């Protein structure tokens, strides 16, 4: 589904991704862990198409297409979804209007008719219930006045409505209490299928108890320095990143 080869990217002359490789296939769940500043969000942003970053080397194929040929909205329409670490507040645009506009763009891309109002409401209500999202939040402006946890929930709600092929979750678990974490994880798990894949960025093993990864990668200084199965996350939880850092210094 996604192939990243030797990805190098920088922002304002600062090299952040330094030769990153990753292969994600349909049906898989990958987790990326790594210390603050190692480049996890940068990777997510580059994949989603944020223009502040300059890709200096490497390539990314998404469903066989060169990702960098596509504008951010085209990537989204092709089925790439980023749940933001810091969801943006958009005053004056209601959540529901936003979702409807987005969904109809995707449907248009697929050559489908726009949703009728009742069809759309049905879908939205079903997914809101799945994520335990208050109906009142649908009519509110996008993320405006939402608590940290509500913002994260809203991201996963959007994910549930849009049903992308590849979902990147950037620290969706941070700031969630344990109940919210369970709801969000259940939501994600219920969306898992053989046709889609998840890339979960997190600092905490806690999340991986609920969303169980097939692979765990450790990112350090712009590269993936170690990959393993879910045991790797447990190891990290216990020993921290020091062993990676020491290894790096040793190399």
């Amino acid at each position, binding site marked *: 589904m996604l192939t990243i080869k030797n990805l190098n990217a920088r922002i304002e002359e600062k090299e952040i991704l330094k030769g990153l490789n990753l292969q994600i296939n349909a049906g898989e769940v990958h987790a990326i862990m790594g210390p603050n500043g190692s480049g996890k969000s940068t990777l997510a942003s580059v994949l*989603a*198409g*944020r*223009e502040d970053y300059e890709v200096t080397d490497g390539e990314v194929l998404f469903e066989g297409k060169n990702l960098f040929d596509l*504008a*951010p*909205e085209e*990537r*989204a*329409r092709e089925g790439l*979804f*980023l749940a*933001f670490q810091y*969801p*943006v*507040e*958009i*005053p*004056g*645009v209601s959540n529901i*209007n*936003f979702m409807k*506009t*987005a969904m109809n*763009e*995707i449907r248009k*891309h697929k050559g489908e008719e726009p949703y009728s109002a009742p069809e759309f409401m049905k879908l939205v209500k079903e997914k809101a219930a799945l994520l335990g999202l208050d109906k009142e939040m649908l009519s509110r*402006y*996008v993320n405006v006045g939402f608590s940290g946890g509500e913002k994260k929930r809203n991201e996963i709600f*959007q994910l549930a409505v*849009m049903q992308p092929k590849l979902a990147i979750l950037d620290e969706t678990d941070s700031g969630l209490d344990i109940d919210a974490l369970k709801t969000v994880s259940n939501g994600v798990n219920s969306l898992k299928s053989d046709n889609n894949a998840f890339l979960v960025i997190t600092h905490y093993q806690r999340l991986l108890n609920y969303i169980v990864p097939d692979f765990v990668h450790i990112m350090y200084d712009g590269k993936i320095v170690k990959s393993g199965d879910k045991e790797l996350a447990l190891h990290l939880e216990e020993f921290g990143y020091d062993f990676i850092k020491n290894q790096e210094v040793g190399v």
Partner: protein
Amino acid sequence: MLKEILIKGFEKFNAGLNGEADNPIHAIRNNAFALFEQQGFPHKKLEDWKYTRLSKLVQNEFNIPDSASIDENSVKPFLIPELKSNLIVMVNGIYNKELSDIKGGEEYFIGSISDGAEKYPDLVEKYFAKISNFTLNPLSALNTAFAREGVMIYTGKNTGIELPVYILNLIDAQNSLPIAQPRNLFIASEGSSFKVIEDFHTIGSNTNYTNAITEIYCGKNSNVEYYKIQDDSDKSFHTGSTDVKQERDSLFTATTISWGGSLIRNNLNILLNDENIETHMYGLFYARNREHIDNQTFVDHAKPHCESNELYKGIIDDNATGVFNGKIMVRTDAQKTNAYQSNNNILLSENATIYAKPQLEIFADDVKCSHGATTGQLDKDAMFYLRARSIGENEAKVLLLNAFASDVLDKITIEELQAHLRNLLLKKLKREL
């Protein structure tokens, strides 16, 4: 030059007014014109005219039309859909009875200012050209000199006009280069209320000029809502002043929407003449291509315990220019004043320009006043967020700008008008209009 055309035009116009010497409107014409003749059009050396130059205006060979008629079918496309109103159609600044449709009522008057002067000479004498001080403003003097068939609204004590008064100003620029000088007088007696819309449109593709004055008197405890909508052609010049005087316990709301015209200059002057007055000023302007839109507001707090609240939003694209100058005066007597002003502008292109200037002059010490002005581009993070959810760049832009403008459109209390303007805004943002 335009001034010479006006001098000749005034002689002819004045000669045609024989027998109206008793009319209170007529009595001050000569004085007003003399003042205009002496001062001429405002020039850029005047502080208030620094950013708005009339040189492109005055070089035109305009005509002063003495009468104008258009057929009903050419009015229809401009009407606000679904709106039930007291409709007044003005053609080239002149009240057109055939095209107007006034529901009428015992307790109020809606009609031409000359009919009003016959029916209520004392009222006209008392208020006409008293709220607008033409000695300070040559454009107001010019309008006063030519004032004749504008609109008068008068509501008696504790009455109201059920349907909004909808004044559709059409300027007919099909065969000539017309000047229109609508002159309106609205008087709300104690405890009365009404809503009024002034909507400006152009027919035809010639250059044209509107110089408009509206005077509004808000009596004690009255409630007046005033809307000015400018949707003229890219060959239209508009200079206009809305001058308001509010008495004790009154509530006045002005909403000014400007999004069509080659050059627009609006003055909104509000005098808070007694205690416990509430005033709201909302504005939205959207300037594109080479348009120039200038809004000058002046709220004059003369007495204690009043509140004014101002919100102006501007979107400027292409090579267009916006000007916002918001002056708040709080005089020595005006203790316990609350005065708020906020002006936010979005520049959509590198060649778009905004001159924004808040001006607070506070002479009382126990007051709450604040102002905030921001100018920026579209929020990049919000744009990316929308695009990352598959919304195309243009669509995302429209969504954000529409949201930006909503703060102002949300305030409109006439539902049909609000829906109409929302719809127009979307079309304009999508460049369908």
